[in-house]
């Protein structure tokens, strides 16, 4: 397998974008990524689109060819990839495989979700859990993560305030991101006093409902060197794993087994240990998710993530900066796009073009995306090559 490089990135603004359709969103992000890649885009030979549920959100399936068409790229192969909220990450993984295998020189991977057209979002998202044995009983997605939160608090003494710190930190970062849905700061008190969603989680523990798209252009080393204008960013690892669809089937409800597995494989591919990562974009769909992910990625021991968040270690400028983009919480969470948007942020960070939210001297970045309660997980590690 040969090395794969990211040579172009682009994304739409995230938010409630009523004036934009699903196809407009995707094409806007894809064009931005192609423009960023310079003339290499002329050699684009295939594309993968991550999308969780265009069928339920806007009543449209079969979006691969639709988006290739509106991108003006018929007849290249175009395939939709679905792993719930990790769909964008999985699209990137499949595009990487295609380039690594030597089948293609330049491939586009993106993600898109159009969530605000009036569909029943709670029920649509619940399809990422076991419909017959979880959702049937009235549990929602915030509810499932609340079950994890209660278990984590009970076992490790994680506090309500530590959870709130995750949201406060991500909003602090998101305030510096012009593409973010909620670019403003919030306080711990606001989180603790926001409306109840699924006890112990409140509204400001939850990522929002968002429209948006993100895209990246992946290429072989030769195509990347020809494209030329940006610092080279190598995909040092691209890994994926599964866990049980039902949260209740896991031996330990506070542990994200699929994240641990995907991370282990990613560190093996990249030949690094977790402490070598300079900047991370992780799947903070709920505040508790970011804490459990930190533990699954090996950034800290089980049960120690809460105190780290509270101490500010995960802030930009801290020992292990997490979600400088604002994360899903503040940047927004168009579910199928989020995994690809993480790669966009990492590339900006590794190129040193993240402006006010730049992590100093970032050379190695890790992106972790997951679907359901962690039943699907992708982990990518990117490395700036000087």
């Amino acid at each position: 397998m040969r090395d794969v490089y990211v040579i172009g990135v682009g994304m739409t603004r995230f938010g409630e974008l009523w004036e934009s359709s699903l196809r407009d969103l995707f094409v806007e992000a894809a064009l931005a990524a192609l423009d960023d890649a310079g003339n290499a885009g002329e050699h684009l030979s295939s594309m993968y689109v991550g999308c969780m549920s265009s069928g339920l959100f806007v009543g449209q399936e079969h979006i691969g060819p639709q988006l290739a068409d509106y991108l003006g790229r018929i007849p290249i192969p175009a395939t939709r990839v679905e792993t719930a909220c990790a769909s964008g990450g999985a699209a990137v993984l499949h595009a990487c495989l295609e380039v690594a295998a030597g089948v293609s020189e330049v491939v586009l991977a993106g993600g898109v979700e159009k969530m605000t057209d009036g569909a029943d979002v709670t029920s649509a998202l619940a399809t990422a859990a076991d419909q017959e044995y979880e959702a049937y009983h009235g549990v929602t997605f915030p509810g499932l993560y609340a079950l994890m939160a209660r278990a984590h608090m009970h076992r490790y003494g994680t506090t309500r305030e530590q959870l709130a710190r995750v949201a406060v930190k991500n909003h602090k970062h998101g305030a510096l991101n012009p593409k973010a849905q909620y670019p403003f700061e919030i306080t711990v008190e606001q989180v603790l006093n926001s409306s109840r969603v699924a006890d112990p989680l409140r509204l400001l523990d939850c990522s929002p409902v968002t429209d948006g798209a993100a895209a990246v252009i992946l290429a072989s080393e030769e195509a990347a060197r020809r494209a030329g204008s940006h610092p080279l960013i190598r995909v040092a690892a691209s890994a994926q794993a599964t866990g049980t669809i039902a949260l209740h089937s896991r031996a330990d409800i506070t542990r994200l087994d699929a994240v641990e597995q995907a991370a282990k494989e990613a560190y093996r591919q990249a030949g690094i240990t977790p402490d070598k990562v300079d900047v991370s974009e992780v799947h903070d769909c709920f505040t508790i998710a970011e804490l459990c992910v930190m533990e699954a990625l090996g950034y800290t021991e089980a049960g120690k993530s809460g105190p780290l968040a509270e101490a500010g270690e995960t802030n930009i400028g801290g020992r292990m900066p997490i979600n400088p983009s604002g994360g899903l919480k503040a940047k927004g969470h168009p579910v199928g796009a989020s995994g690809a948007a993480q790669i966009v942020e990492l590339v900006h960070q590794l190129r040193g073009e993240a402006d006010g939210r730049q992590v100093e001297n970032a050379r190695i970045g890790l992106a972790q995306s997951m679907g359901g309660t962690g039943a699907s997980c992708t982990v990518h590690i990117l490395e700036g090559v000087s």
Partner: protein
Amino acid sequence: MRSPQYTREIPQRYRLEAGKCTGCGKVHFPPRLICDACRCREFEDTTLPREGKILTWTVIYVPPPNFDLEAPYVVAIVELEGGVRLTCQVVDCGPEELAVDVPVELVFRRIQEDSQADIIQYGYKAVLKRE
């Protein structure tokens, strides 16, 4: 939920029918075709015990549409005797009575009504086991 989909799950929802792997003894709920622990494909029928304890729980304040009239309600992961775990509502109690490890038993209850398919859907819920 359409009626064929609902009908298929009746043995589990009404009667807690499960499959016990003849290879390693692991009990699967719902039954499976292959054991994830030992990959054995032979199972014998078994019924889950109704007694267990709460592993973790939440109170749902923002429900899906089918549960609109019921919120707030409690959902828990219950570990039954023998180790099988499932997700269900906990009813006939206030949240202040709930805690990790509290003993519960499963009872047969109405779960939801699907106005589209026009079927009343039943299944198991947990109630606190009181002395």
